[in-house]
């Protein structure tokens, strides 16, 4: 059995960032993911915000890594050909006292190294954010905030890591880890993995993984966030990311511009017991609408076209990123809630340092393929480009998803790049994410998936085993003598 230098547990944004970073070095690396595809855990519910670094406690790891990450993300997104847009962020104050809080936030952020901050007044707001509540008196403007597609980021990181030699195993839930010092034996349903170092990026289940090695000093307490997506027609509802003043536990209900164009409002912040509770509620919707309307009064619940919930893997007030001396060669990367996405490149660098300090020699490869080819998306290009693409490959003209203008070629390419499920296709291509939510394109996508993966239609799932789309196929039912005509 192969002895890996490093096994990373969890293929979310943290795990794939670390995998890619480590793949610069001459190491054998395995990335294990319990779901059917990367990003199907915490990362898929991410809001996609690249934070400037405001609203982090002074001296916190997450604050430092957030500011660092904000800079690094720009370079990485360019290399990976994932769109990053710097849209800026506004934290809104409605009265004098709140304005004083803004000044405090500004001071704290500047101490962390956030640049370009300024307090803007009513006149600026009226001109630059016309739909904002006119009762807003001032705002803290952070120009370095941006937006990115969180799952496209994960897919590109994963793809690039694989290109540089990382092996990714999905449907590989870690059931137990045995520390047969100096190595680890990692038991998953399909196989056993042996590793010299283990990096725990298991999100909601990081405490469970850590416990397997007897390190149980922290507990992941899931905090649910419900989010509501608005019609793309309302794309220009806000020009910046809009935040209220933060509370003790959360950044509050935001007006979010997503990388795909649809505005999003939310999230709520509610402690829950169940690590798999992704339900939304009436109360959540009401709360979000009330808070969102305080910022942008014209928001209408009729504009809501989709909704979902995510769980933040909360553990205390800061990131837990450390080598566990009691379990040598085991590194915990846990409690990575917001600003985890922003911080992820910086987390990766930090983890590399930690692993180097703890005995793993990091020898740089001669060749590291830093770049990812741009994933072609028909809806994002002008018709002149579409013409060229269709000339190159006729199936760019074969439109499968009408609402988001996604071609058969893009869907087949997504499968070749690792999409195995209907949700995987949706996150990679946006097919099924438009107005009709798959009413038109579902059958065609199922057929393409079945064809490309050489599987029967009955086996195609929404997001992994247990979520099969259909229960029976007449084609397989025939049985008996029957009449053939």
């Amino acid at each position, binding site marked *: 059995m192969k002895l890996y230098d490093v096994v990373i547990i969890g293929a979310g944004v943290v795990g794939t960032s670390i995998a890619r970073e480590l793949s610069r070095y001459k190491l054998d690396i395995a990335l294990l993911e319990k779901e059917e595809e990367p990003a199907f855990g915490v990362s898929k519910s991410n809001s996609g915000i690249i934070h400037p670094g405001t609203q982090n406690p002074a001296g916190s790891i997450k604050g430092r890594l957030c500011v660092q990450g904000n800079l690094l993300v720009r370079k990485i997104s360019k290399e990976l050909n994932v769109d990053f847009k710097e849209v800026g962020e506004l934290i809104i104050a409605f009265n004098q006292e709140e304005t004083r809080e803004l000044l405090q936030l500004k001071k704290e952020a500047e101490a962390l190294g956030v640049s370009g901050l300024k307090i803007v007044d009513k006149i600026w707001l009226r001109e630059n954010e016309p739909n904002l509540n006119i009762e807003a008196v001032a705002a803290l403007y952070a120009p370095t905030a941006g937006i990115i597609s969180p799952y496209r980021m994960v897919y590109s990181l994963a793809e690039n890591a694989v290109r540089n030699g990382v092996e990714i195993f999905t449907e590989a839930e870690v059931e137990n880890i045995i520390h047969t010092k100096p190595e680890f034996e990692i038991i998953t349903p399909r196989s056993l993995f042996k590793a010299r170092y283990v990096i725990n990026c298991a999100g909601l289940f990081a405490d469970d993984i850590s416990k397997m090695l007897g390190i149980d000093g922290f507990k992941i307490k899931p905090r649910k966030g419900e989010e509501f997506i608005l019609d793309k027609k309302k794309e220009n509802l806000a020009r910046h990311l809009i935040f209220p003043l933060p509370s003790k536990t959360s950044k509050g209900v935001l007006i979010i511009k997503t990388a795909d164009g649809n505005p999003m409002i939310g999230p709520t912040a509610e402690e829950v017991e169940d690590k798999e509770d992704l339900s939304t509620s009436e109360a959540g919707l009401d709360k979000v609408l009330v808070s969102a309307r305080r910022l942008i009064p014209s928001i209408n619940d009729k504009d809501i076209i989709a909704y979902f919930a995510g769980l933040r893997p909360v553990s205390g007030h800061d990131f837990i990123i450390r080598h566990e001396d009691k379990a040598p060669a085991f590194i915990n990367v846990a409690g990575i809630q917001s600003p985890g996405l922003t911080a992820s490149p910086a987390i990766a660098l930090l983890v590399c340092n930690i692993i180097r300090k703890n005995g793993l020699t990091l020898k740089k490869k001669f060749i590291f393929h830093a770049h990812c080819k741009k994933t072609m998306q028909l809806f994002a290009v002008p018709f002149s480009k579409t013409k060229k693409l269709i000339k190159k490959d006729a199936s760019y003209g074969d439109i499968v998803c009408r609402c988001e203008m996604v071609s058969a070629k893009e869907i087949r390419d997504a499968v070749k790049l690792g999409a195995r499920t209907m949700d995987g296709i949706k996150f990679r291509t946006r097919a099924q994410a438009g107005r009709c939510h798959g009413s038109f394109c579902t059958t065609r996508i199922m057929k393409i998936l079945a064809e490309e993966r050489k599987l029967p239609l009955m086996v195609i799932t929404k997001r992994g085993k247990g979520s099969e789309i259909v229960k029976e196929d*007449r*084609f397989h*039912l*025939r*049985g*008996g*003598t*029957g*009449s*053939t*005509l």
Partner: protein
Amino acid sequence: MAVDVENGKVIKVTGNECPKGEKYAMSEVENPARILTSVILGQGLELKMIPVRTDKPMPKSRIFEAMNEIKKIKVQKPLSAGDVIIKNFLGLDVNLISTRKAEWTRNFQQEP
């Protein structure tokens, strides 16, 4: 419409607006019948499923038996709308007919 029934048989129908109504009311009580529509499997044809119907109403009581038979049928030659697929379906004076044209699939040609 209102129907007077005795021992499972209709003795009087009132309230119908046309003669067809009387016939329908009687059949609904004594021998309810329905046109059955469904789909059957095609092979080598341009359609995977071919829509079919009974050309006349058939007894409601035998519908699930009909469905079991329908699920076993496989058609391997081109059809026009109206073509009889099964004559005297279930031994009744009813035919199962195609409601849509289906030619050979364009992927390959089959000898009939």
